[in-house]
């Protein structure tokens, strides 16, 4: 990619804001570590999301003010957070009962690859010398009702992350509902990747070009959110 190309599409913050737009009021949400966490900053006025962190807190609030944190009040990324009014603490088995039992409405996660069938790879590069680490990712994709992925459309090397089938080790099979990238919003449908929205200045052909599988054009009404 040239320097000019880098400027097309949404910034990380804009991607997060675009995700936030699509989350209904009152949803119980788990935000993955990294870019997904940004989503909380862009929830539209008048809408309330309830944040779950799988290490055992519902109604998680933002980071504490300096000096006011507790090293034992942390999120799944092991960073200090706060508890909002109405918060509750629970142990791991109850926390993953919430996840696995389908009680969470939505999870936003990062990705290495997403296949056109909705398979997700986001936990391992599969290298022989890598230390494998999975945490709660496989539980989240298996249990949460809707899985949104937020990711750059391509890798730093320009390789597509939306592919016909994943080459990295899978996190889950047929689990992703939507992908939010710097270029577009794409739904995973029975027919494959379906364009839902384009970043300003980006056209269908540009997105198709950078996508490793066939892309269906925007439909008047999409119902796969």
């Amino acid at each position, binding site marked *: 990619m040239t320097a000019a190309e880098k400027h097309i599409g949404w910034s990380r913050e804009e991607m997060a804001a675009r995700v936030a737009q699509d989350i209904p009021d009152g949803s119980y949400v788990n935000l993955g570590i990294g870019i997904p966490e940004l989503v909380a900053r862009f929830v539209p006025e008048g809408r309330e999301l309830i944040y779950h962190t799988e290490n055992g807190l519902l109604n998680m609030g933002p980071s504490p003010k300096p000096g006011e944190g*507790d*090293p034992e*009040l942390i999120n799944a990324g*092991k960073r200090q957070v706060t508890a909002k009014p109405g918060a509750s603490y629970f142990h*791991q088995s109850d926390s993953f009962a919430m996840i696995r039992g389908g009680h969470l409405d939505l999870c936003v996660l990062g990705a290495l690859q997403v296949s056109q069938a909705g398979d997700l790879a986001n936990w391992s590069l599969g290298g022989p010398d890598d230390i494998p*680490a999975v945490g709660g990712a*496989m539980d989240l994709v298996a249990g949460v009702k809707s899985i949104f992925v937020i990711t750059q459309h391509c890798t730093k090397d320009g390789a597509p992350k939306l592919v016909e089938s994943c080459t990295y080790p899978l996190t*889950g099979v047929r689990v992703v509902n939507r992908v939010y990238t710097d270029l577009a919003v794409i739904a995973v449908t029975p027919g494959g990747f379906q364009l839902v929205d384009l970043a300003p200045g980006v056209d269908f052909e540009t997105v198709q070009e950078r996508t490793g599988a066939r892309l269906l054009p925007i439909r008047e009404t999409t119902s796969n959110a």
Partner: protein
Amino acid sequence: MIDKTRANVAEAVQEVFDGATLMIGGFGEAGSPIELIHALIDHGASDLTVISNNCGSGEVGLAALLKAGRVSKMICSFPRTANSTVFPDLYRSGRTTLELVPQGTLAERIRAGGAGIAAFYTPTAAGTPLAEGKETRRFHDREYLLEYGLTADFTLIKAKLADTRGNLIYNKTARNFAPIMAMAGKLTIVQAAEIVAPGKIDPETIITPEIFVDRVTHVPNPAHESELVAAGATYP
């Protein structure tokens, strides 16, 4: 009167034997029973299998136990951390083996072990590399994996408040694995920041009932792993 208190962390862990399986509470530093782990290092037990969500950071607590060469096998969900080179070195050199278990499956296996459930079917990890070699079965048109209950010879956990009989309350997200590990450990050893007489804790608020607890020892000001790591501390 039932009294499960022990004079200090050394007495609390003295029964741990070589080759034992241990569950150790904590998610990152929250809930990690650092003082009990350090006492275990002093105690000297080796060839341990450790079930814990992570592998510690820096060279204190669980990372120090690993560094001391006492752990032959780790069962955990997330062995990588920002500040740890201990486990990666042991893993790459083959001195410590790893059984990687998704976090929710790990929690459910521990609960099952404590609850007398031999095995259960979970949808987590179906179709992924972590399903390799596992029995699968379809229910309602979806694939599930058969996973087995886990128990341990000893469980080491940290509580905010205990009574002398072993009823426990935790601090915020430090609760994490402790209540289920207390259930699944044959001998459950607790370090508590405060110990009170029975009846001083409202029975509606007790998270771990005494029946799951065997030893309680007082550690009034438990160290925070992140502060130790930031200070470059090592143990011993």
